[in-house]
């Protein structure tokens, strides 16, 4: 029972111990390959959050993960496991590229709105077929979304190396650069006084991501539709009893999920690369799964988990840059350990800590249970009601 512990222990103490354990084990690995773990940690933290420069990258990465994490989370609420984020985000990139290359937008703001719409529509479209197959044909969404990732990458290679390729651009499979008019304001343009440099990839899409998080929160916890999505996710027979159509919920949840994945492209393709390159998603679809799971499918949790991964990505890049002995794969190891300890091995810390608190405040007789509890398995667990 969660109420065995005060709330602060639940949402602060436990994650911090978990993180410390993950970093400790990572430190051991770093030490084993002959590098100084304390130095590495210092560079990691400093590099990620110690300067405007670091924040510029950390938040840029986090923005991607917010989109994909929210996407996976929304699907989770309807008990759909959307592994197709990679493909949906890739298609979102295609949508952004097409709408920006083939339409002349007079101003970035219009371009941004168009890109949001296009990326969401393309991403949603790529999720629509697996969703429909799941809803109507019972084809397992996990298989179909995995397959659609592969199909998407084939489609992207084809389009980028055969169709959208700029002639004479040296053969790099990428589209032309988008027009200067649709360059999104970067953190430097918006808030130079914060010390962001011209090159910071953080851009206005960050706010789009925050809005998306707010939107997801409203959708899931404040709308009738969200109520239905969660109800369906918890119990399909009960949903039927209540007049909730499974097909409708599966389709909507997956379309929203695909749309959110697609919107990642607004940040990565429109905001950062300013052209569509091959494999523009860079695994963010998969990271989104970890983010959603660790964030327990709640937007606030997703924001925090995305930030954590942003820190690991940016801080990791700095460590790799500063310490030649630490390679990029070492960073992957650290990420893995963080996921392992904060996500999968959560109870290893939680159980003893809970017992500790409990032994201090066991009630003599408690005739009836008192507080809501959330067992670990469901996506609603540990939700934060602001």
């Amino acid at each position: 029972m969660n109420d065995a512990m005060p709330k602060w222990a639940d949402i602060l103490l436990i994650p911090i111990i978990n993180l410390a354990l993950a970093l400790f084990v990572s430190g051991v690995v770093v030490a084993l390959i002959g590098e100084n773990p304390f130095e590495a940690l210092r560079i990691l933290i400093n590099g990620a959050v110690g300067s405007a420069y670091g924040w510029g990258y950390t938040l840029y990465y986090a923005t991607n993960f917010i989109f994909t994490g929210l996407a996976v989370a929304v699907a989770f609420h309807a008990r759909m496991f959307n592994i197709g984020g990679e493909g949906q985000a890739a298609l979102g990139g295609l949508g952004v590229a097409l709408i920006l290359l083939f339409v002349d937008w007079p101003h970035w703001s219009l371009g941004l709105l168009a890109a949001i719409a296009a990326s969401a529509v393309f991403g949603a479209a790529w999720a629509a077929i697996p969703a429909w197959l799941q809803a109507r044909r019972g084809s397992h969404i996990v298989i179909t979304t995995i397959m659609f990732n592969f199909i998407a990458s084939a489609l992207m290679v084809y389009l980028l190396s055969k169709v959208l390729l700029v002639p004479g651009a040296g053969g790099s499979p990428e589209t032309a650069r988008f027009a200067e008019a649709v360059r999104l304001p970067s953190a430097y343009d918006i808030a130079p006084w914060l010390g962001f440099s011209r090159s910071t990839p953080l851009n206005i899409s960050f706010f789009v991501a925050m809005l998306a998080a707010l939107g997801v929160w409203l959708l899931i916890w404040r709308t009738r539709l969200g109520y239905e999505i969660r109800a369906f996710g918890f119990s399909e027979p009960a949903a039927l009893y209540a007049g909730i159509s499974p097909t409708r919920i599966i389709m909507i949840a997956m379309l929203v999920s695909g749309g959110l994945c697609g919107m990642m492209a607004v940040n990565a393709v429109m905001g950062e690369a300013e052209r569509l390159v091959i494999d523009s998603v860079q695994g963010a679809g998969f990271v989104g799964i970890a983010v959603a799971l660790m964030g327990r499918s709640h937007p606030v949790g997703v924001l925090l988990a995305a930030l954590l991964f942003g820190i690991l990505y940016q801080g990791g890049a700095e460590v790799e840059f500063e310490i030649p002995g630490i390679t990029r794969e070492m960073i992957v190891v650290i990420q893995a350990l963080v996921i392992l300890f904060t996500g999968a091995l959560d109870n290893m810390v939680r159980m003893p800590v809970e017992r500790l608190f409990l032994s201090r405040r066991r009630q003599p007789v408690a005739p009836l249970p008192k507080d809501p509890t959330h067992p670990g398995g469901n996506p609603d667990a540990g939700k934060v009601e602001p």
Partner: protein
Amino acid sequence: DAHSSPGLIIDLGGKFDKSFNESAYNGAQRWVEETGGEYAETELANEAQREQTMRRMAERGANPVVVLGFANGSTLDVVAPDYPDTDFVIVDMVVDQPNVKSIVFSEHEGSYLVGMMAAMASETGTVSFVGGMDVPIISKFACGYAQGAKAVNPEMNVIVNMTGTTPTAWNDPVKGAELTKSQISQGSDVVFAAAGGTGIGVLQAAADADILSIGVDSNQNYLHPGEVLTSMIKRVDNAVYDAFTAAAAGELETGISVMGLSNDGVGFALDENNEALVTPEMIAAVEDAKAKIIAGEIVVHDFLSDNTCPAY
């Protein structure tokens, strides 16, 4: 100035990809050994780090900053103007900025030569190619190879396969081997791999089946002595070495530099591992063609010029 040390940014394929990046790394190492100099080096971990890393290198004072691979082109185009005092060198791509030296290789010409050798070594009349991904730069290899093979024998059958469409296509020796086996079953007895880590599987499968293979980028003849016909070498190492050396002397020239047959930027590898495989006639024919290409008597079609290939 001559006091700042050069920087090298290894691309996503990784420092030890046994081909392109590794070759660059070797060039840098050679420079270190010969001059005792120091240089900064880092490896990209993802797409978004391109710009970040270039800027970091420049801001840290590295000069010149060497970046590898076509994928850096449009990024460098944006970054270079911000650091007018830093020289950049980009390999495999042309970037039109005053402080950028663009080094491009005539891979199609080198591939043409190994294609000729493949055709001459083939007994079945079928040779093959395994590429990583069906992107133009790989087609440039494939197309040059096919032209060379058909130059020897217009009836030559050239099978061209690509490994995949995801990033794992460059690291899938299993699939590389399977493609090779499939090509062998279609009659191929010489296979040319331009597929990064996947190529290791290609060369292995060829060696296992006792047919010949052709390595790429760096000299891969040693991988299976006596079974690798040759390697289409692309002297990225020289490019990096030269850039480092020139910069140290303060003589780095920006602009486009084409590394082709004439300046030994590309070529085929001959060493003790393959001397038994390469006949004098082959060498004669290939040297002849090389001379003609340099002289402009033979024009090898560059796939990148129009994204088509006349040979297949």
